[in-house]
């Protein structure tokens, strides 16, 4: 612990958002620094690397106008912390945790480091309580449970924004209404998207905490925003006993920011230029989801990833898929057919679904309905290829039935527009569909 702030004017080089400070007496990794520019601006930064008396600092703000002679660097002797209080509920912040909804800053109850601490694996409780998103295809076939991390894999141009807004307003727990909070973090947001989400939040009035990092903000802030959001979520979950759902959009912007910063630090690039530690970095965010045995509250995560070039093997969706417990994959084809939400059931999966459905969780017949719908739909989808070769007339009656089932399943079960469906309605829709085609003995 140092008694005073240390000020240095010993910058030796400046490049992009990085600056080197010489002859620094003592500094710590991750220490927050303030940069005072010659024109009187103050920016925040962080210590990245220490090499004897040379310190590498990353600046979060716009570095235009900094110089070597007059810029001052102040070492604050503290690591990056998030201000926390129950009053954050219902508020909208920018990517640096400053209010942008017009109301004044709240008085923090406490400060917590943004990187958090890993949950002891033996303290975790098994995720098994159902969260209703209001979308049939997710609730019925790719069920989300409390403490899970389930990403949405989207493609550019698909309505992931509308799906996120739908989940923002519709998600709830089945058994209790109180204490459910959506923490929303938007990364690299364009103004168009920003106003869309703001409208959705205004309609919600409360029950959310929002962080918006705009597209024109420095990329360093983009790496910080999800950490603020998760620190806030952990605080609400494990100190205030609330169930939180953290929605982050879009992780692709986050990963690109990570790549940009890694390159400027002259690190060795990995696949497609993304740094080799991207898996660990993403995991340090996603693994913060979970439940703790003997404690109220939970952190559930729903990140959105836009797959570059619609490619699911691209490093971003690939590494995400390795960390998360399943994925919801959107399909361009379904979107063309005007189906909303355009979720492709076949590659989608919820790994924790088995424990979260059935009697006492959703409904006794949930598992059976889900298995049957998946099986018949997969059959129908398979047969579409055959239909393309031999034509509908060349197919048996049973096969044609399957084809019709697949079409109806898409247009009536998956497709639901913006209306909310409860889990009962979802399962009844599925049941009704199977009855109509006289499938399965339920």
């Amino acid at each position, binding site marked *: 612990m140092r008694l005073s702030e240390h000020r240095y004017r010993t910058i030796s080089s400046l490049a992009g958002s990085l600056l080197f400070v010489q002859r*620094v007496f*003592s*500094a*710590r*990794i*991750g*220490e927050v620094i303030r940069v005072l520019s010659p024109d009187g601006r103050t920016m925040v930064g962080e210590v990245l*690397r*220490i*090499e*004897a008396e040379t310190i590498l600092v990353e600046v979060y703000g716009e570095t235009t106008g900094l110089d070597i002679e007059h810029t001052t660097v102040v070492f604050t002797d503290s*690591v990056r912390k998030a201000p926390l209080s129950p009053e954050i509920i219902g508020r909208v912040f920018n990517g640096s945790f400053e209010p942008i909804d017009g109301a004044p800053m709240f008085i923090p109850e406490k400060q917590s*480091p943004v*990187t*958090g*601490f*890993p*949950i*002891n*694996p*033996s*303290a*975790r409780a*098994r*995720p098994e309580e159902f969260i209703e998103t209001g979308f049939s295809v997710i609730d019925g076939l790719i069920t989300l449970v409390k403490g*899970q991390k389930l990403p949405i894999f989207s493609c550019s141009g698909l309505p992931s924004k509308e799906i996120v807004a739908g989940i923002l307003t519709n998600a709830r727990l089945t058994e209790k209404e109180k204490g459910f909070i959506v923490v929303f973090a938007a990364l690299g947001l364009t103004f168009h998207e920003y106003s869309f989400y703001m409208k959705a939040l205004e309609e919600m009035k409360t029950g959310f905490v929002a962080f918006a990092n705009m597209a024109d903000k420095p990329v360093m802030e983009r790496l910080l925003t999800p950490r603020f959001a998760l620190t806030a979520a952990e605080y609400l979950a*494990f100190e205030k006993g609330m169930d939180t759902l953290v929605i982050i959009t879009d992780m692709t912007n986050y990963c690109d920011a990570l790549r940009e910063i890694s390159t400027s630090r002259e690190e*060795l*690039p*990995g*696949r497609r230029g993304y740094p*080799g*530690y991207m*898996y*660990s970095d993403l*995991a*340090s965010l*996603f*693994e913060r989801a*979970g439940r703790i045995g003997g*404690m109220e509250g939970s952190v559930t995560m729903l990140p959105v990833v836009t797959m570059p070039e619609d490619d699911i*093997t*691209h*490093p971003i969706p*690939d590494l995400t*898929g*390795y*960390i998360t417990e*399943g994925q919801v994959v959107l399909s361009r084809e379904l979107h063309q057919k005007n189906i909303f939400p355009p979720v492709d059931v*076949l*590659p989608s*999966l919820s790994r*924790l679904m*088995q424990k979260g459905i059935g009697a006492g969780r959703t409904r006794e017949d949930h598992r059976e309905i889900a298995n049957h719908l998946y*099986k018949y739909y*997969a059959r129908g989808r398979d047969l579409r290829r055959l239909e393309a070769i*031999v034509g509908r007339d*060349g*197919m*048996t009656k049973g096969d044609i039935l399957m084809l019709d089932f697949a079409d109806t399943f898409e247009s009536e079960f998956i497709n639901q527009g913006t209306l909310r469906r409860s889990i009962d309605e979802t399962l009844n829709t599925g049941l009704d569909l199977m009855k109509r085609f006289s499938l399965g003995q339920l």
Partner: protein
Amino acid sequence: MTGKIRGISGPTVQVDLKGLKLYERVYVGHAMLTGEVVRLEENRAIVQVYENTHGLGIGEPVKGAGTPLTVRLGAGIISGMFDGLQRPLERLKDEMGPFISKGTEMSALDDTRKWRFFPLREKGAEIAPGENIGFIEEGAFKHFITGRNASNKKLSSIVDGDISLDQPFGEFDDGEEIMGCHEWPIRVPRPYRRKISSSQALVTGQRSIDFLFPFARGGTAILPGGFGTGKTVLEQSIAKFADVDIVVYVGCGERGNEMAEMISEFQTLKDPRTGRQLMERTILVVNTSNMPVAAREASIYTAVSMAEYYRDMGYHVLFLADSISRWAEALREISSSLEEMPAEEGYPTYLASRLSGFIERAGVVETMNGAIGSLSMILSVSPPGGDFTEPVTQACLRTSGVFLMLDTSLAHRRHFPAINWFQSYSLYAKDAIGYYRVQVSAEWEKLHYSCKEILQKEESLREIAEIVGIEGLQDSDRLLMRTAEMIRSDFLSQNSYTGDAFSTPEKTCAIIKGIIGFHDYAVGKLKDGLTLEKVLRLEDPLKEQIVK
């Protein structure tokens, strides 16, 4: 001997401490983070820190421990759960709360717990090196205490009764005390008399493995597969049902929730052979993806040292790691912070040699006291983008005996375990089939080859069927497609959430015998001139028999 931190870059720290040895354990900073010396230069040493270096400052003190990174070996490891540095996670939770904070030292074993010790030798007896002096009852296992360093020394005293690990179990005539536990450097393989070539099959309870790609005691298998292909579920199923005494499971850079699920399952499920709780034969080493990267690198060595310790008591131990790719990535991360020259995809050039050095710790051995123990390894691999040409998969392929390729398209069709039956192989097949032929059924070998042939033929027929439709095929080909379909859905796929999750070799043999038996029978009938539809009508009573 203390020094100071001179520089910090990611998980590596430069210190000015002199007199350190390579791979010596070091305590770094005020928080006393654990580290290991990875490079020595004239005036400085580079230390790889096993915990998050966030908040670490320049000038903070550094202290050498004088010993390399070790694990503590003794009673109480079984049914324990440890992190990559062998800190006991359960006790850590009780003391520190649900989150792991930095720099917490805690002994892996509970030194105050009383154990019942039964001596095997009496006072005055001469003890050979490695000889069992007595044993502790550790759950269902006899945990042998040996005279490790005894070179034909005589026992001058020995305890009989309840004792804790911090007390001596006895004494030799030269005054040396016999302790119930000891420290072992994790990167050093434990000694044995000799290695034995393995010829015994290891039953995993998974039909597709036991029947098509059999695994051997002391062997190594790798399971590469893209995400969602069921690597973890398959590893956990094997951990539950494999025919071994002790299972060491390493969650290496994977999900925390999975571990929570596994613990709660292992505490409720029973071992089908002994009827005891599965946790009573399991050791868990967990370093989830958000726990420090460098400790992930150490975790597999920590785990394998514990596995070898029980192997040396003459037990059959199965080591499972999920996933070895995360270990390789940790190695890459450390290597790049040391600014080493990278090879393919940024991995260090020594990836393959480190990996084969590690995999060679598996095997069937004659232990120091003449018992036979084995250590078998099953490692999952997570190739980026599901691309098997990447360095980690390729490096594993060179040293492992069974290659079980997990197939994304099978997984999408919900065929689990999604083991591709064309690409996978087992180098132990010949010995293992011989073993099953003797132990289970004389027909095993014949069935094995007919099954493979049917699957192969189906593949070539499938292309034709896609064009002309299945109705356009000849009756004999349609029959073959039908049989192959039965093999795939009723034999090879196995739901790990039902009673079918575990299949004994007898059951495996009975099912495939039923399917192929009917196939041969139907082929005969077709030759007699019956149509396929008529033959299939004959099938039902037969199928009922199979089910029984």
